[in-house]
């Protein structure tokens, strides 16, 4: 190609005074940005290959490297931004759909940041979580609205199957194939240590991970990869994936290049074939059809495991959730449009769906109004970034949250958003053995355990500040939230007052 329309996004800045030519940057970059010039006796870089993943920056022992955004600029234009122009160049060059990874980077409102949490003063004492008991254990599943008694008058404590979480956080679905064996193992080990759950995603469960079954949620998605009776029985719960926040309305496509070895075996499809998850489940075109699948799965597992139905947050999410709550599902998982993905068409990711905060508020209200809130637990995901987001989500009505991007960041992900290239330098979103080994699950699981434990401390601190000593008492407690800089309509949808009211 004679004309290169695409100028590199980043520049690699090397402080030659600090560079000791140890070549760790060269050895660690799967994109082959760095190389040693024998004649010049110095390291040189080709920034056009750089994805800004910071592997070299983080491993450089003398901090000689930094990556900066290029200041090469197009003529200023508020409408035709540099990004809009280069997207056209890119598509004019390839004729293809633009692919992207992880959650949308677009500047949509983050409602978590426009809500403030209450605290006790004088009349309602706050609680010190270091001195007094504070309960973060959460049960997910259908709840009985009233107390049932046995013929002898004692309370009937038999419930439908429940998931018991030590913290109201779970690792959400990421398939083996989209992420590496070591990333999966890190999640599994951490879930086991923490007393929470991780989710297999739609790629089946590697035989090595059956031992973590009691902390595993097994997923059944439209491609039905790796689904067999042993798989369903292995997990603590079964999740039916109807949609994903990052790409509502479309399916998935794992390129044949990633279907190698154990991934092919685990997914139960031939090596090298593309793993295509259809957009819909071809046997589900109504809530009644969904109900059939829910009960098929319950039947297959002897009614011992709760069934989760995961949907993407879309415009009619409350009506859809109402249907799901009547389908026999035990838990609804709602995934907001800022949620992550290993690969999605960029236009879909950046333009389809609604924010999870609004979806959660309207679903919780709708289910309460219809008197079916106890039929299901609500788990939400789609960019939960910290413990304050969790506290706000629970106050808006969630029973627990799903985190995936945060978990990957804990494992080293730098959100370079090039998972779809399969060359993850951090050993997460790749199947290349030399890259996969960069993530030692012993280290990874420790970091995940640290993160969730830290969040648990913070959740307790914030609950204590509000004078609340259990997640139960915080759930749906919207009086604990106030909006800041929100319109009347937004406050109405969120069901909260404005700060000062």
């Amino acid at each position, binding site marked *: 190609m004679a004309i290169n329309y695409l100028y590199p996004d980043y520049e690699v800045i090397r402080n030659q*005074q*600090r*560079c*000791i*030519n*140890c*070549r*760790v940057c060269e*050895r*660690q970059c799967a994109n082959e940005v760095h190389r040693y010039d024998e004649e010049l006796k110095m390291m040189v870089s080709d920034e056009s290959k750089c994805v800004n993943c910071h592997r070299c920056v983080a*491993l450089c*022992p*003398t901090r*000689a490297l930094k990556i900066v955004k290029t200041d090469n600029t197009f003529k200023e234009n508020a409408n035709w931004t540099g990004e809009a122009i280069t997207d056209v160049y890119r598509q004019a060059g390839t004729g293809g759909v633009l692919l992207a990874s992880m959650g949308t980077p677009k500047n949509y409102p983050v409602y978590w940041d426009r809500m403030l949490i209450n605290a006790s003063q004088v009349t309602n004492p706050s609680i010190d979580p270091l001195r007094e008991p504070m309960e973060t254990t959460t049960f997910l599943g259908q709840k009985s609205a009233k107390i049932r008694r046995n013929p002898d008058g004692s309370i009937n404590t038999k419930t439908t199957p429940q998931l018991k979480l030590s913290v109201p956080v779970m690792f959400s679905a990421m398939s083996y194939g989209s992420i590496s064996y070591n990333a999966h193992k890190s999640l599994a080990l951490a879930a086991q240590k923490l007393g929470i759950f991780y989710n297999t995603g739609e790629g089946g469960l590697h035989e090595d991970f059956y031992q973590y079954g009691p902390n595993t949620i097994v997923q059944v998605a439209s491609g039905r990869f790796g689904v067999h009776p042993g798989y369903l029985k292995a997990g603590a719960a079964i999740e039916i994936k109807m949609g994903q926040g990052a790409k509502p309305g479309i399916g998935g496509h794992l390129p044949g290049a990633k279907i190698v070895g154990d991934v092919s075996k685990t997914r139960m499809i031939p090596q090298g074939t593309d793993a295509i998850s259809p957009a819909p489940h071809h046997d589900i075109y109504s809530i009644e059809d969904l109900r059939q699948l829910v009960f098929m799965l319950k039947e297959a597992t002897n009614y011992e495991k709760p069934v989760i139905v995961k949907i993407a947050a879309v415009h009619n999410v409350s009506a859809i959730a109402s249907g799901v709550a009547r389908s026999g599902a035990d838990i609804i998982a709602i995934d907001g449009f800022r949620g992550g993905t290993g690969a999605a068409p960029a236009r879909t990711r950046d333009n389809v769906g609604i924010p999870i905060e609004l979806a959660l508020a309207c679903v919780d209200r709708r289910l309460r109004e219809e008197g079916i809130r106890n039929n299901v637990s609500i788990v939400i995901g789609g960019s939960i970034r910290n413990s304050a987001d969790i506290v706000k989500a629970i106050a808006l009505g969630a029973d627990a949250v799903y985190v995936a991007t945060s978990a990957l960041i804990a494992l080293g992900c730098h959100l370079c958003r090039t998972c779809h290239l399969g060359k993850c330098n951090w050993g997460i979103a790749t199947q290349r*053995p*030399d890259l996969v*080994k*960069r*993530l*030692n699950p*012993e*280290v990874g699981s420790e970091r995940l355990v640290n993160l969730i434990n830290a969040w648990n401390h913070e959740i307790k601190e914030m609950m204590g500040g509000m004078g609340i000593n259990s997640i139960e008492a915080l759930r749906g407690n919207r009086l604990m939230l106030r909006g800041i800089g929100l319109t009347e309509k937004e406050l109405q949808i969120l069901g909260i007052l404005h700060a000062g009211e």
Partner: protein
Amino acid sequence: MKRVYVNEQWCLGCHLCEYFCAFANSGQSDMARALKDAVICPRIKVEEHDGISFAVNCRHCTEPLCVKSCIAGALSVKDGLIVIDQDKCVGCFSCIMSCPFGALMPSDTGVMQKCELCTSNSAGKPACVQGCPNRAIVFEER
């Protein structure tokens, strides 16, 4: 005794251990200054072949052949640790010939050098272990 153990499953062949070793034994406080334009002579070496890599340094054997072979009495065992007195070493290479792991090597002054688990420099704990990004080298009791 705590020793340095390697786990080739997690070794990335990044060679950082070699540079942290060279820095720890340089006696300097700034890594860039210590190693800029230097040809390093570390006491740990990454062996690589065919996609497999691992770092090798002194195993601190309970029956060390190097100590037995030393003609100058420069090598000795001190609380399980094999140490070298570089003033006594005559540079005969007998220890290099006898070590089954290739863990001794000539220093830039011509006499031998070996890993002493960072007990004789300012690092305190083995610098290679502290600098390993993937816990491929560990310092533990086994």
